[in-house]
């Protein structure tokens, strides 16, 4: 069984909620990636999303765009990132998920990429510019090595589409909480709770919400309607500021009893 599937089975049994932080590989140099993953694991992350920098990240807001530019300015390559994961994996026991756009993967070669990340210990893949209409381009390679493709549903996806998307795969579904790109937000649309409840009622997979989640209050509120949260831009901001305490506070917000 894939690590992602296993972790969510355990969480469900124990009635726990997931917290998945995002880091950009190569931001601050590849050497800092190990430190960051170790810290996040120790702070209680359920799994970690690792961004691969891309020159044209259309689904990302300014914070992740800039982290990507900082990473690319170090001339880091996807090959180096995959190799680096191979070295780090032995000391990380939680699931690791790559998040990247299609083009760097195509340049690497989809089949070779799938095999290499499997041997590096990656468990899942999120590709924001790959809707289900196009996913056949990579799914057979991923299936072969049991890497989970994590699919996204959004506020725009109608019920039938949510059903179609969530019946695929065994990992979790990524419920995008805003009409928009990544980046911190002050608040969410009022229909978010009912939307998450709707997804939750349809989806056989665990539902993790992400995009814009920035405060412990957001975490607590959103967790009433789903199985976990994904936090990207805020984690990057806090890491940039060296504010590990606030990262712990965010992660601990998942552990508070749900009202």
């Amino acid at each position: 069984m894939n690590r992602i599937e296993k972790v969510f089975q355990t969480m469900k049994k124990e009635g726990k909620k997931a917290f998945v932080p995002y880091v950009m590989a190569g931001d601050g140099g590849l050497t800092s990636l190990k430190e960051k993953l170790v810290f996040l694991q120790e702070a209680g992350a359920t799994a970690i999303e690792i961004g691969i920098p891309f020159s044209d990240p259309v689904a990302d807001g300014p914070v992740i765009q800039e982290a990507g530019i900082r990473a690319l300015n170090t001339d880091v390559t996807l090959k180096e990132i995959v190799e680096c994961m191979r070295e780090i994996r032995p000391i990380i026991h939680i699931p690791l998920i790559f998040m990247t756009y299609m083009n760097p993967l195509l340049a690497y070669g989809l089949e070779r990429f799938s095999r290499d990340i499997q041997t590096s210990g990656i468990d899942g893949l999120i590709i924001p510019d790959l809707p289900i209409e196009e996913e056949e381009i990579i799914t057979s390679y991923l299936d072969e090595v049991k890497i989970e493709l994590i699919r996204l549903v959004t506020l725009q996806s109608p019920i039938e589409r949510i059903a179609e998307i969530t019946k695929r795969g065994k990992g979790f579904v990524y419920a995008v909480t805003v009409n928009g790109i990544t980046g911190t937000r002050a608040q969410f649309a009022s229909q978010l709770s009912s939307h998450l409840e709707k997804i939750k009622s349809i989806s056989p997979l665990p539902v993790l919400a992400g995009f814009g989640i920035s405060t412990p209050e957001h975490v607590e509120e959103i967790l009433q309607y789903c199985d976990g949260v994904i936090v990207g831009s805020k984690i990057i901001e806090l890491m940039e500021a060296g504010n590990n305490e606030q990262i712990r506070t965010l992660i601990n917000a998942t552990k508070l009893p749900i009202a």
Partner: protein
Amino acid sequence: MTTTILPDEKGHFGTYGGRYVPETLMQAILELEKEYEKAKVDPAFQNELNDLLRDYVGRETPLYYAKNLTKYAGGGKIYLKREDLNHTGAHKINNSLGQALLTKRMGKSKVVAETGAGQHGVATATACALLNLECVIFMGEEDILRQQLNVFRMEILGAKVISVKSGSATLKDAVNEALRYWVSNVEDTHYILGSAMGPHPFPKIVRDFQSVIGQETKKQFIKKEAKLPEAIVACIGGGSNAIGMFYPFLEDREVKLYGVEAAGLGLHSEKHAASLAKGKPGILHGAYMYLLQNEDGQIQEAHSISAGLDYPGIGPEHCYLHDIERVKYDAITDDEALEALQVLSKTEGIIPALESAHAISYAIKLAKEMEPTEHIVVCLSGRGDKDMEAVRSKIGGVKA
């Protein structure tokens, strides 16, 4: 083999094209496709568009025999399809009006668009003024500097122009920002993409709205010469004027088609925008297409003296036509385009856009290899007023 039935129902031209977009946009794209297919066969929609094209844009545009340019080149006869005489000065209005009408049809009240040279921005701002739509245009900071006049035209027309500073601050980055804006405002906003690129159904929609160029050309040419032309030449940024010109001729195998990319400072340099000549297939802005990119799949900056050709990709249908060798693609440098701009101005009294000057330059070379009984049609995609500052800074001019 028939080449005119593409794309397939998933938006693929062979392996190219497709819909590589964030899930948030899928609904909008599926809805657009549905509405477009309905509009296409709706006589009321077609009549409204055709009336506007005739009375507002000034179609049909003339097919002009350029006697002096022909004499200058010495060889085949050169005809110019005068898209520069369209309202707003380029072919871009054909697509902007069509898509603005679609926006209304979908019940949306706002429009976002990207622009490079500013021609698509001006055309879209114009269509939005006419049809009472709110309009936001993203434009690279670099292009804003090159195309001051067009920026001001858009503002006068009531559009909001937003400067894009990310990346190379040109067309590619303007598309990124327009896509991000669309994702965030998808409920009431339509994205009027300006070239035959992006996710399906855009390459098809833009091609269809631009095909009026080739349809008119065919009719006009047959009337004048009682045959089809031997060759057709068009410049290529994303590929909309070229595909609009080529599409009605794709099945006429005897007509040779030539697409001209921007060679910038030369194909041996790093500074060009020749995606087919120097790129390899990949995914950007929702489509699988030839792209200028490094080994690691990072998109590289394009370069061209003409802002409208300064794009590191090329529409998926062109990629397909390239691979099956139906169209021959070549490239013209900044210097050659600058020279052609001056030649056409002095011989014919027509100042072409720098983009179109690439096609003129290529046609002059091609004409030299052709017999006087043979004919070339060049798509003169736009007029050069917008480029006068840029050209003056290159070649100088009398100062007070």
